[in-house]
Each structure stands twice: as C-alpha cells, then as structure tokens.
C-alpha cells in the first residue's frame, strides 16, 4: 500500500532551492554582470565652439571611451561653429571614439560651419526640416600690414603681427581644404552635391541638406537614439546625459564674442583669428 507523499516537504524545498532557485539567481547575477543594460550617451553642443565648450566636449568623449557600457553616442547640435583648432580637436577625437562606439549627430536649430564639421565626424546625421545646415568654409580677420610700432621692440618682422598678411589669406584656403576633405570622407558616397556647391558656404534648410546628401535623414533626437542603438547592435538602451557624468568643474566663462563700447555683446568674435563660424549677415552689417 502506497502512502501518498505530502506536497511540501523540507526535502523538496531543499531540492527546489538547490536545483531551481539557486541556478536562476546565479543566472540573473551573471546576466547582469555579463550583459548590463547598454547605454546611449547624449552629448550636447548648444553654444559656439571655443576653448571652453571644446574642452567640455573632449571630456565627454573621453568619458565615453572609458566607459564601455556606453555603446553609442548621440551628438545633439545647435551651434554656429567657432574656432578652427578647437573644432579640429573635437572632430579628431570623435573619429577615435567612433572606432569603438558609433556616433549619431542630431541637428536641432543649426549646425553651421564648425558645428557641421563635427557632424561629418559622425556615422549618421539627422536634422529637422528647417534646421540650418552647412556654411562650410572658413572666415578670418586679416592681420594688419607689418609696420614699426613706436615703443614696441620685437625680434622679427612678424613677431608682432604673427602672419604675413597675404599668406594669412592663402592659409584660409588650406584650412578650407581640410574641411572639404572631412566632408568628403565623412559623407562618402552619400554626398550628392558637387564640391563647388558644397564649398559655396551656403546654409541649407535641413530638407535640402538631406537631398544634397549633407545629412542622412530628417528626424528627432529619439530617432537619433534609435539609430545609435541600431548601429551599436543594442536594444532597449538606457539613455544617459554624459555632461553631468563627465564634467566636474564649474564652467568657466569665456568672452568669445566681442562687446561693443556700450556693453552690447556682438556676433563677431572678440579675438582676431581663423574661425569655422557662421555670423548672421544682418547683424554683421549692423556691427560693422
């Protein structure tokens, strides 16, 4: 005669714990360790590109490189561009980051000049239908012709002025070649416009930029996040803002733009030099 065994016995419970719960918990722990939720990092540029904003961007890109859980980056742009060397520094760092992590650019109001330079350093470019895109080229302020200045002693004709005036103008062309090359390499076969058109310096509305192949698609920031995840081969990522994670220092204010004698901030830079910068023509004429 068989005696019916009770459903719960300590022996059964021990067996379930040993053969079911324990492996499941171990699996969960190992899954969490081996396969953490991927992250898509957001890096924003909402000002001109100058030493301060470039330094912030470089710190954020460095943070991405140091944190493999960040599987993709969305660079949100709303900028008229800025100084040449700072733009190039960020662009070159972007290319390094891209070797391991895809970067998708999402243009809001404007990615002009240097900001567009950064865009072509990404894997994919989204913009809005009326975003201002392009303004590819360089502007510079010609230095004064070398002359002797009473009361200042220098050791060479260009020690005081830095550049030969004519050569300085020509140098702009070499900087432009770098920008043009970045556009060609970055856009590749997607670029449909002639280079002469691209280098005309025009700003195009986003929809036209897509038609010309200067951007890939019209889309929002969430589209850019999806695209970054897709390029990285991840799903259901966690979206994180990189700035608060990477920047610990208080922002340093920098007088990038000039100030008129009556205290109004101008739209032209305070210092002479070469710029990958868009300056609204109406304001330029008014400030001249």
């Amino acid at each position: 005669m068989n005696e019916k065994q009770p459903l719960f016995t300590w022996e059964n419970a021990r067996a379930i714990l040993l053969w079911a719960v324990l492996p499941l918990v171990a699996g969960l722990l190992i899954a969490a360790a081996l396969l953490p939720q991927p992250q898509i990092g957001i890096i924003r540029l909402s000002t001109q590109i100058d030493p301060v904003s470039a330094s912030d961007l470089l710190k954020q890109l460095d943070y991405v490189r140091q944190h493999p859980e960040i599987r993709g980056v969305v660079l949100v742009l709303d900028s008229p561009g800025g100084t040449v060397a700072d733009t190039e520094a960020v662009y070159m760092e972007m290319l390094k980051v891209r070797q391991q992590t895809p970067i998708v650019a999402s243009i809001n109001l404007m990615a002009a000049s240097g900001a567009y330079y950064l865009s072509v350093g990404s894997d994919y470019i989204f913009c809005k239908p009326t975003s201002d895109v392009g303004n590819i080229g360089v502007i510079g302020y010609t230095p004064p012709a070398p002359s002797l200045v009473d009361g200042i002693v220098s050791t060479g004709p260009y020690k005081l002025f830095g550049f030969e005036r004519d050569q300085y103008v020509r140098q702009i062309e070499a900087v432009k070649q770098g920008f043009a090359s970045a556009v060609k390499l970055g856009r590749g076969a997607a670029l449909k416009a002639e280079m002469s058109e691209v280098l005309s310096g025009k700003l195009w509305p986003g929809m036209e930029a897509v038609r010309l192949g200067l951007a890939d698609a019209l889309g929002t920031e969430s589209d850019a996040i999806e695209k970054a995840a897709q390029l990285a081969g991840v799903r259901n990522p966690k979206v994180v803002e990189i700035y608060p994670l990477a920047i610990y220092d208080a922002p340093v204010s920098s007088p990038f733009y000039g100030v008129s004698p009556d205290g109004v901030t101008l739209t032209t830079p305070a210092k002479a030099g070469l710029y990958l910068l868009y300056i609204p023509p109406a304001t330029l004429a008014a400030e001249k």
Partner: protein
Amino acid sequence: MTLKNRLWIALGLFLLPILFQAAHYTGLPQPRPTPQMPEYASFRAPEAPTPSAELVPAEVNHSGARILLDLNHQNTYQIADVELFTRALAARGATVEYYFITDLDTRPLAERLKYADAFVLFSPYMIFEASEVTALRDFVAQGGRLLVFADAYRGVQGYSGEFPDTVSANLLLAPYGLSFTGNYVYNLAENDGNFRNVKLNDFAENALTSGLKQVVFYGARSVNITGGEALIRGDANLRSSLNDQGGGLAVAGVDASGNVAAIGSYTFMTPPFDQAADNARLIQNLAEFALSGQRLPALANFPFVFTRPVSLVTAGNAKLTAETLTAVAGLQTTCAESTCR
C-alpha cells in the same frame, strides 16, 4: 526525478536570464565604415602667381600732360591706394592733379578739364552735377580719356547691406555703353588663394591689354558692355555674386571710341597685389592709356583768351576783307558753342 534531469533543469534556469537579457539588449550590429582622418599635413596654402609679362621701362614722352583724378564725389579710395598708378603717370612725364573743390580752389570741372588729357575716377558715391556731366561729355568728345574704376572692396556697408560704388559711375558711363554691376565676381575653381581673388586670362587685342598673359583681380565688379569691347574676361567658372551665374563675364572694357575705359577693380594696384601675375604691367598699360588720347583742342582749351569777353583788335594794315570776316565769324561761332564767354 533523476539527477540528470535535475541538472538539466538547473542549467536551463541558469541560462534563462542570460539568454533573456542577451535577447533583450542585443541586436544585430550594423556594419560601419572605418572613420578616416583627412591628410591635414598634405594641405598647402596656394602660391601667388608670378609675373610673366615683361615690364617696359617708362619713357618720359608725355611731358606737359595733365591727368586729373577725382576726389570731389565722396570717392572711397585713398591716394596711397593708387600710388603705383599715379607714379607710373609721373614717370612718363605727366602731372597728376586732383579735382577737389575747396574754398581755396573753386574752379569747376569744365575749367579743370581744359588742360587735362585724362580724367580718372575711382569709386565715386556722390552723383555728378549736370554741368560736370556735360563737361565730361565734351571732354571725351574732344578726344580726352576717361578712366572709371569701381572695386568690390569699396562698397559702403549699411544696415540693409552694401551700397555699391557703381551708381554715380554708371550715370557717367551710360552714354558709352558701359556700366558696372553692383556685385563681386568669384571663381571657386581657379583663383589666387581665395574665391574672390580671380585669375583672368582672356584678353582682347588692345593697347590696354598689351603683353598680358594673366592678371589677378582682388574683389572685382563685372562690367556690362553694350556699345564697346570687353577687354578682360573671366572663364566659365567666373560667377557673379548676385546670381551665381557666369560664363564670359567681363571685368574691364572700353567704349566704341576707345576713349572711355571701365575697370571693375583697382585693389590690384595696391601692394602687394601689384606683384601677382602681370598686374604691374596692367598698371603701366593703364598709365599709357590715360596719356595716349588724341585730344582735339577747342577754343575753350586756351586758358586765358576766351574765358573772358573778347575784343578783336586788328594790328598793322589788316583789311576787313570777306575772308577776314569769315574767319572772325568762325571764331565767334566756335566761341559761342564752347564754354567761353
């Protein structure tokens, strides 16, 4: 349950969260091109084009010639900007004078033109008075040379954009079939270091273009020619800033008589731009052009005799014959048609 079954269940439960997490977070990565860096070290600033035309030594063969440069119409140039041109005139023996009415010198343009061989105009903004326009037309009709220069760098910026230096000049040039466009020309393909520094290789046969193989204009306006000849043209890539269209745009021309020249730039005269290509030779040619007019003197050109009431005095035994009276009548007619009183 056998031990083997228990092991399978344990393994399955162990792998389940890992597989679930993998499926939840992992997709198919898309292939991405390897990012490529521009070869920055290979980019070079373009070199300035070197001269190819021979510079002809100036001969002092225009002694006594006078060239009048306008400074009376809010011209946006400095005397130093065109010093190489005025130096070329002086080297040929000419005297350079400036037309600028002051309290000390109130002589009108007609008076100043009496002794001039050429009138040279750089970027005027003030409109010429009717008497000045008439004086210049008479001057040109008598073989005087008129050189009119505009320049894309000499526009005046206003709140609503640029006021080009073309309006006043075009009013003078209109009777001669020449006019400036208030644009600048550019060339993205063939230029001297910058799109607005345009290289020009297409020259018409003319003394003004003698010996030129290439000139470079720095900030030039295009010249429209309806009644003369285009002297310097750009190639198909030379475009106008107003509409980005191009194809044979001219930047210099002369009228049908060959006495009026319109040149769309003069920054090329200013160092160091005079050293590019054959610009120095063009400055020489312009000086020669200014001095090579065949001015037909009229009575009004004589300085003192016919600017005041004239009394006819006979000397000796002159007889009032029909021939004498005819000659005197001719003098009176000429005097009445000119500006003498």
